[in-house]
């Protein structure tokens, strides 16, 4: 019927309407996913177009060191003559607003890269561990051991060895996250491999790689996506922590952790250096976590019921 109604266009209008209705239905049922994904998209756009939104984050101006933010005036905090920039300036006269906008780049890069890296390695190891008994015995002992080392400590230790660079931060945060992904994937594989359709595939002579790829892999996607979101949130926090402690992103790069590390000396008298990156960091992590919660409720109703 829809095809008859929309005979003029490539897509029959009924189908388009049905699709729009589906999207609207999804948005109505999952407001958390839509809201948090939109906020994160906005943050990503800000980070991507940072050059157009803010001045040079590295530009020094000793004449305007430690000036309070102009947005505070609205609330009557400081006199109009002394303020500088939206978020004020830091101890070298750099614009805190520009540095905060550019800082989103580091956080997003590290968050996404760690999520991608740890889920990729975790998926491969988890699939094999779930299906190959001998590999399972060895790999899971190694994973148990790695999980016993507190992840922030392991990341700090790796950073101490490799030296500070964004690439090393990504590796140092990914390594401790891998065992958690492996456990998740392995648990899924162990349930799926007992399913009648997998047994049917095995008995009809399907070979192992094909079983893993065609029958088992697709079932891991939903929980893996949820897990990747949480890993991303954790990675954003740990990057900021490492930089804050002086063992993360190189100090000259504007990242939120670095800004907070510089701001802590002046915290008691000039709190804005610490305040704005801190707020942005908390907001980003909050919305990534909310996205994770929303995805979990959407993709995995069984776990959702247990966790809610």
């Amino acid at each position: 019927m829809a095809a008859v109604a929309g005979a003029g266009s490539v897509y029959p209008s009924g189908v388009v309407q049905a699709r729009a209705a589906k999207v609207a239905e999804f948005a109505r049922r999952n407001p958390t996913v839509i809201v948090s994904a939109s906020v994160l998209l906005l943050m990503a756009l800000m980070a991507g177009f940072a050059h157009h939104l803010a001045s040079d984050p590295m530009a020094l101006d000793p004449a305007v060191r430690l000036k309070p933010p102009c947005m505070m005036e609205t609330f009557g905090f400081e006199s109009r003559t002394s303020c500088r920039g939206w978020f004020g300036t830091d101890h070298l006269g750099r614009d805190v607003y520009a540095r905060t906008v550019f800082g989103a780049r580091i956080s997003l890069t590290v968050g996404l890269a760690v999520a991608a890296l740890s889920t990729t390695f975790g998926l491969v190891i988890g699939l094999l561990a779930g299906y190959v008994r001998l590999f399972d015995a060895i790999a899971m002992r190694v994973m148990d051991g790695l999980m016993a080392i507190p992840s922030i400590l392991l990341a700090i230790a790796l950073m101490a060895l490799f030296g500070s660079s964004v690439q090393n931060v990504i590796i140092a945060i990914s390594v401790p996250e891998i065992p958690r992904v492996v456990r998740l994937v392995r648990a899924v594989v162990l349930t799926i491999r007992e399913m009648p359709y997998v047994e049917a595939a095995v008995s009809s002579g399907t070979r192992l790689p094909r079983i893993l790829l065609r029958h088992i892999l697709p079932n891991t996607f939903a929980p893996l996506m949820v897990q990747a979101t949480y890993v991303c949130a954790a990675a954003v926090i740990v990057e900021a922590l490492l930089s804050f402690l002086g063992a993360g992103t190189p100090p000259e790069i504007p990242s939120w952790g670095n800004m907070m590390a510089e701001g802590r000396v002046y915290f008691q008298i000039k709190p804005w250096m610490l305040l704005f990156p801190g707020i942005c960091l908390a907001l980003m992590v909050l919305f990534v976590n909310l996205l994770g919660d929303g995805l979990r409720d959407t993709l995995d109703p069984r776990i959702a019921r247990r966790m809610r």
Partner: protein
Amino acid sequence: MRFLSGPRVYAYIVHRILATIPVMGVVGVAVFMLLHLTPGDPAAVIAGDYARPEDIARIRHQLGLDRPVHIQFFTWVGSILSGDLGVSIFSDLPVAHLIGQRLEPTFALAAATLVFSVVIAVPMGVLAAWKAGTWTDRIIMIFAVLGFSVPVFVIAYALMWVFSLKLGWFPVQGYKSISDGLGPFLHSIALPTVALGVIYVALMARITRASMLETLQEDYIRTARAKGVDNRSVLIRHALRNASVPIVTIIGIGIALLIGGVVVTESVFNIPGLGRLTIDAVLRRDYPVIQGVILVFSAAYVIVNLLIDLSYTVLDPRIRY
């Protein structure tokens, strides 16, 4: 309640204790390997950019890096098992001694946080489950999501700003040992405890609520209500006790979170504990100290989780071994 007895439980306990050995073995290998995975010469990395060749040679000899790897490993494991964690490159003091010196503030902070979190989070979770779907429940759950998302050092500075700088109720930084008196100790540790506790409270409140919700739907709860047992008794004696296993489990998993948080909190509040020792060691590339601290923290994590697993034998007699 009845304590379990019988050979199967003892067999489980022995089995569970033995299972920690391979875990600690892997931790040991990983910690040992850390030094050997260094790109280039570890001795040169530790000595820093401005080291003279004789300094590098001294460090190489001190760490035993001039011997074959397997000999190094077994010597290292042997000395650790006899309680010798090596010697700090920076201060020339035994690592075990340095760790012993710093143990008290860290332990005090971790214990205070644990107590604070349980006292706050469990009633919160029970309340949220009891009032599920109402505004009380929603507010608690919003707090749980927020608390899980705001990084510990952001919370720490926010608390410091309000309660130390503006209101002047607590010291900005520093630590008073418990031997200086209970009052000054609690006063100095209050803000760090709350800052570190927020994430833990959020996590535990969420799990408590979920576990309680599940338990409250059980038939025996309905039976208890039908018998006329009052609400408080149903919640505490019937539901919470049966909901306790996931709550206790999350305490164990959260220990890793707690250890990471301790490192940061000590740095923010200038508390002279193991966390400060770790950060100082990292900045000085004092590798024996880093290795020692990681081993101690990992052992603590393994032992706490062992105790928690063993506690199930008491908490939930339904679990079969």
